[in-house]
């Protein structure tokens, strides 16, 4: 804790009444409860003793919208020595917070100052999400507060999912829905398997009360590279299908056709003026010899020239920006870019459509008609009976290749009054292959040789993105540093690359290398350590209990050829190592041909994922991998 010093006289004006009154401090029982809980939840500072949520519905007759009232009551207890946390709640232009309050354990109001600010999302330039929050301190173990919050949604379509898991472990969780008879709503259950969720349903005169309870809910995982939460935790997705008023039924979202209709109405609001793009489209297609070349020129131009700057306030979160705006501003979000690609392709005479899609982060598909299903927009080119998907936000993406995050996901393609649902094809790890090849010889205790690296698919796109983001003057330095792994013992020179603006062909890098401190001579023996790349050595998933999601399906292959110096024999080589599991397939092999030692490595992660139940196996393997990497080659005279 940094101490700031200021005049005491000044401080005398700010007497804080830290007087503890009776009843605010935890009882002996509460303290022992906290101690016990800390044993079970050693990584959490706070435990929520009970949490209950109540969801009720109202009808806004004038606007023909269904209103949702969502209230939460929680009892929070500090189970560590001391805790200082922020309790927060989000809202936006479609919702409002009616009540946000804290009470001490004796029900006296706790007057902490509530802040209300814009929620600054890292990826969005401007959005209307706001956050109400309060900073609270729990001075001793067992200290507890009661929290109450009431939020109102102006339109049920924006009220999507309810989770049992929270930032902190919850001992007793209850979610209650009071569904009025005039509302036809489906409570779609996900990931309930394996959890003892109790569900009761009671029909009363004017409503049905559905209650879910679950005990001892662990805190949400706090790891990086996790799959989206819709895969991991049990939850309920609320789908309001229709409501009946005065005998008339209004359809909300019964099927994905209804979802599409709403999206269509937003698109109808656009007033594109494509004349501004005409000359650019002509410029891009005039000298193109084939259709594919024309399409590529347009698609790549949007990738390269439109920056991703997202304004997601209110309807801008759902309605694409007009293509002429995106074109003239030279910035936009995924919707704006998709629309621009569509309009430019149309000007060039092609059939291009707007397409909604949920990225890999989202577990749902369009059999669930909900706004929670999609979070992205791309463009579909209908060409000679085939569908080709174009994503302007994927910089350096090659035409006809699809980013990992949209592969195997359902796309909703506009088709006039109806929509087409089609899955984006998947590729294999081989498609993204990355290779490393080097031929080395020993000269003066240094490994000297030539190297070659290749990238394709997603490994290529990732490389190009990073490289081209550096300042002009820093690129060579950064590339050299990358190839030498920022290791002073590795010197690279004569670096030659394929065209680093070309996103279609295989990316190659050739260079010379000189590696020191990998050869140790003792008496008549030379110990050679060919492990200077150390792939996956530090990829340890210690204590992790949730799946690890990689950027893309990975296939990495390496081969090191070492010329055996004259007069020496290989007396010891590290052992081969391999493992073949569903999520990873790895081989390390050493071969002595008499003239050379050939050290081959291949790492295949064919699913781009290490599932939770495979983590233990991975950690065991990682240990063996490290042992293997620690083994030297022994050469004797």
């Amino acid at each position, binding site marked *: 804790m940094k101490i700031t010093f200021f005049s005491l006289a000044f401080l005398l004006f700010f007497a804080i009444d830290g*007087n503890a009154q009776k009843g605010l401090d935890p009882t002996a029982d509460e303290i022992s409860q906290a101690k016990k809980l800390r044993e079970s939840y050693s990584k959490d500072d706070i435990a929520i003793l009970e949490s209950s949520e109540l969801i009720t519905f109202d009808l806004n007759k004038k606007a023909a919208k269904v209103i949702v009232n969502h209230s939460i009551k929680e009892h929070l207890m500090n189970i560590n020595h001391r805790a200082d946390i922020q309790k927060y709640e989000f809202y936006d232009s479609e919702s409002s917070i009616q009540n946000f309050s804290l009470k001490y354990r004796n029900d006296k109001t706790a007057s902490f100052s509530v802040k209300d600010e814009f929620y600054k999302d890292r990826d969005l330039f401007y959005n209307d999400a706001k956050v109400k929050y309060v900073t609270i*301190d729990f001075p*001793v173990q067992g200290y507890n507060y009661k929290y109450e919050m009431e939020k109102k949604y102006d339109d049920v379509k924006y009220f999507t999912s309810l989770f049992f898991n929270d930032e902190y472990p919850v001992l007793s969780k209850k979610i209650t829905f009071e569904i009025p008879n005039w509302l036809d709503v489906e409570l779609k259950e996900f990931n309930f398997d394996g959890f003892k969720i109790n569900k009761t349903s009671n029909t009363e005169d004017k409503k049905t009360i559905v209650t879910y309870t679950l005990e001892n809910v662990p805190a949400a995982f706090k790891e990086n590279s996790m799959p989206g939460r819709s895969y991991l935790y049990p939850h309920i997705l609320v789908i309001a299908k229709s409501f009946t008023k005065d005998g008339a039924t209004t359809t909300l979202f019964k099927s994905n056709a209804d979802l599409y209709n709403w999206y269509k109405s937003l698109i109808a609001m656009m007033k594109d003026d494509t004349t501004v793009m005409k000359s650019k489209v002509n410029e891009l297609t005039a000298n193109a010899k084939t259709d594919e070349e024309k399409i590529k020129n347009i698609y790549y131009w949007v990738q390269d020239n439109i920056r991703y*700057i997202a304004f997601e306030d209110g309807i801008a979160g759902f309605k694409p920006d007009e293509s002429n705006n995106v074109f003239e501003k030279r910035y936009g979000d995924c919707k704006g870019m998709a629309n621009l690609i569509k309009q430019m392709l149309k000007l060039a005479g092609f059939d291009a459509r707007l397409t909604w899609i949920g990225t890999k982060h989202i577990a749902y598909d369009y059999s669930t008609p909900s706004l929670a299903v999609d979070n992205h927009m791309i463009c579909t080119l209908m060409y000679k009976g085939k569908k080709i998907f174009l994503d302007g936000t994927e910089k350096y993406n090659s035409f006809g290749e699809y980013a990992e995050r949209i592969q195997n996901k359902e796309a909703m393609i506009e088709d006039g009054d109806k929509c087409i649902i089609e899955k984006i094809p998947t590729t294999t790890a081989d498609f993204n292959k990355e290779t490393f090849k080097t031929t080395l010889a020993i000269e003066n205790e240094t490994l000297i040789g030539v190297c070659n690296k290749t990238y394709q698919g997603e490994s290529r796109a990732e490389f190009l993105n990073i490289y081209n983001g550096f300042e002009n003057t820093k690129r060579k330095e950064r590339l050299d540093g990358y190839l030498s792994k920022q290791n002073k013992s590795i010197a690279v020179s004569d670096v030659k690359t394929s065209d680093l603006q070309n996103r279609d062909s295989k990316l190659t890098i050739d260079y010379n290398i000189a590696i*020191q401190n990998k050869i140790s001579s003792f008496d008549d023996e030379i110990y050679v350590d060919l492990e200077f790349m150390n792939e996956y050595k530090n990829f340890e998933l210690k204590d992790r209990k949730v799946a690890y999601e990689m950027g893309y399906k990975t296939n990495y292959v390496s081969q090191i050829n070492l010329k055996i110096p004259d007069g020496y024999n290989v007396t010891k080589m590290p052992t081969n190592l391999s493992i073949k599991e569903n999520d990873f397939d790895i081989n390390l092999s050493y071969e002595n041909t008499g003239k050379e030692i050939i050290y081959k490595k291949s790492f295949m992660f064919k699913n781009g994922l290490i599932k939770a139940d495979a983590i233990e196996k991975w950690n065991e393997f990682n240990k063996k991998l490290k*042992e293997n990497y620690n083994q030297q080659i022994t050469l004797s005279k």
Partner: protein
Amino acid sequence: MKTKLALLFFLAIIGICSAQDAKEAREFFWGAKDEFKKANTIPDKWKNESAVIIHKREHYNYHKFGKSVTYVSGIRKRIMLLDQAAVTEFSQFSYKNKFYSNRAYGYKKGTNYVGVKIIKPSGKEIEIDTDKESKEVDGEKKLAVPNLEIGDIIDYYFYSVEPFKSFFDYTFEAVETPLGDVYPTMDLKITLDTENDFFINFNTYNGAPNLKEIPTKNSGERSYELSEKDIPKNEFPRWFYPLAEMPCYKFQVIFARSGKFEKLADGFLSEKERDIKKTVSKEDIFDYYNKKFVPAGDIGDINDFLKGKTFTSEEDKIREVYYFTRHQFYTRYIEAFVVNEAKIFYPFEYYGNYPIFFNSEVQFVNYFMQFLRKNDISYDVIIATPRYDGSIDDLLIQSNVKKLIRVNTKNPVYLEYFSPYTSADQFNYNIENSKAYVLEVSKGKRITDASTVQLPSSTYQENSVKTKTELTLEDFTGFKAKKLSSYLGHLKDSEQSDRLNFYDYVYEDYKKYATKPLLDYVKNKKKNEQYSNEMKALINKMKDTQKESFEKSIEGELDFLVDDYSFKINNTGRYGKKSSFEMEEEFSIKDNLIKKAGDKYLIELGKLLTSQIEIDQKEKDRKNNIYSVYPRSYENEIILNIPVGYSVSGLEKFNKKVENETGGFTSTAEVKGNQLIVKTYKHYKNYFEPNANWNKMIDFLDAAYQFTQEKVLLKKN
């Protein structure tokens, strides 16, 4: 009706005023007098840069009406963007449109005016409507610049109008900066407009051009300008003080309405406000400080402390008094601040109405002047400026000055303003080895003259860290390690401030001086119990965080993870140069540092030296001189317990010796009994090395790096 009309009229005036200001801003930078309206080309030599600043203008305007001061500052940059990184950098702006001026009095609102325009390669100009295009988020405006592409020029300005009221004198914050920017600059212009009652200190250094006075129509007005062309971008290497060598300027403006306020001012004022003050002389120093330093304070507490005590020397007595006052007037209150910040309770009522607490250098100096005067001990006051600011001959800005007391005992004792870790045996390393002013004090109380002195240096032996790491093999796959570290001199106080929390030292001070910990003042049993529990909880939480940070620290040094970590602080070392900061750590190293070589093992013992400075090719080509914080030394001992039945070889690689006039790295290795003992010693001798010596430094730095790569072979007998 009348009030409504009046209100509308009033608002209209405000609207007109701010619209007027906005027009003024635009006209000021982009108006008829803009010489750079059509400047659209850059020199060939900079075509490969990320961006080039075609023109940069900084403007400062100080005017007043009675007590109302209006401070206008503006900056304009016209930049050609040459790659994606630059386009991304300038695609987004955020700024506060309206802000509350916190200067002097009058919580008034200031306004920022922003203009942005884009010039395409064809010459077409597109001006952005910043009000329309920006979005407001929590009082801040965010602007996404439309239509920006590689090859475009972006020309933008920020113009800030800040009114405030100043009843007394007011000192504006100083500006001290090299001329250069992140990108190379073709043309730079700095202008300053002001009038009577504003005193300006301005000077340029290291070959920067001088400030020119521009004739004005009105005799009360003054106008100045500094121009330079062709300024390379700032790319500073490590161990470098830009202000000491790069062309730079320093300036500060002080508002003082009359002689009375001039005397109160917080800076060195020129004789006449018409004249720019370029340097501060010995006489200026004397004039400014002779009234500010006056013996003052009640030394009763010190007298009580000294009662019945004897000391081996006068120097010793001074030191003991220093440590006592460091507690009595400083560390004694730290618990209170902690408890207040954590909202545990309001503690200050327990300390009486007017507890003595030093919160400024001047107060500290005056108090010690009093003590020394009353005890008839000769002393002087030292005025010094940090080496990174340049020489004291170039002193211009008062707030840069550090003040010390030099007690003129046989071996002088220097006393500086407290931190929990200051020592009476050393003073701030930034002013060591620099020329300083001595304010000579006669009869113990009057400052009668000023002279100069070269402040003493500390040596690399005095600023040292000694470590001893003992390793025991575990299963031949890892090690159990125990590390003892001991710090002295300046390496000590930087380590103390990084690692120690209040609870590590306040209680030893209470014990030493028999004063009461905070909770002893709380007589109410129930409250005492509650507060004690909450204090304990807070300290326990802080201890958890402290342990995590110690563990991360050693993992960062070793560059790999450790397990089963624990640490202990054996001595805080807060009582003088002979007491070292000592700590011990224990941890396990798993699957690291040991490699299998058939049936033998290679142990990467060198890595225990921890990460060393790595000088790459780019740094090798360094053209600047080298500035060290202070001479220092690092002594390490690494002990490997050789398992029974095994022996080690390859010790030759651990015997190194590189020594020269800049410093050195030496290492030795030998087997003693069943232990391999490796010793290293690295030292930096000086505060400054000319560039000609850079290669000599690289020699020992490379040797130290190479040491970390050396391995020893372990084999069965």
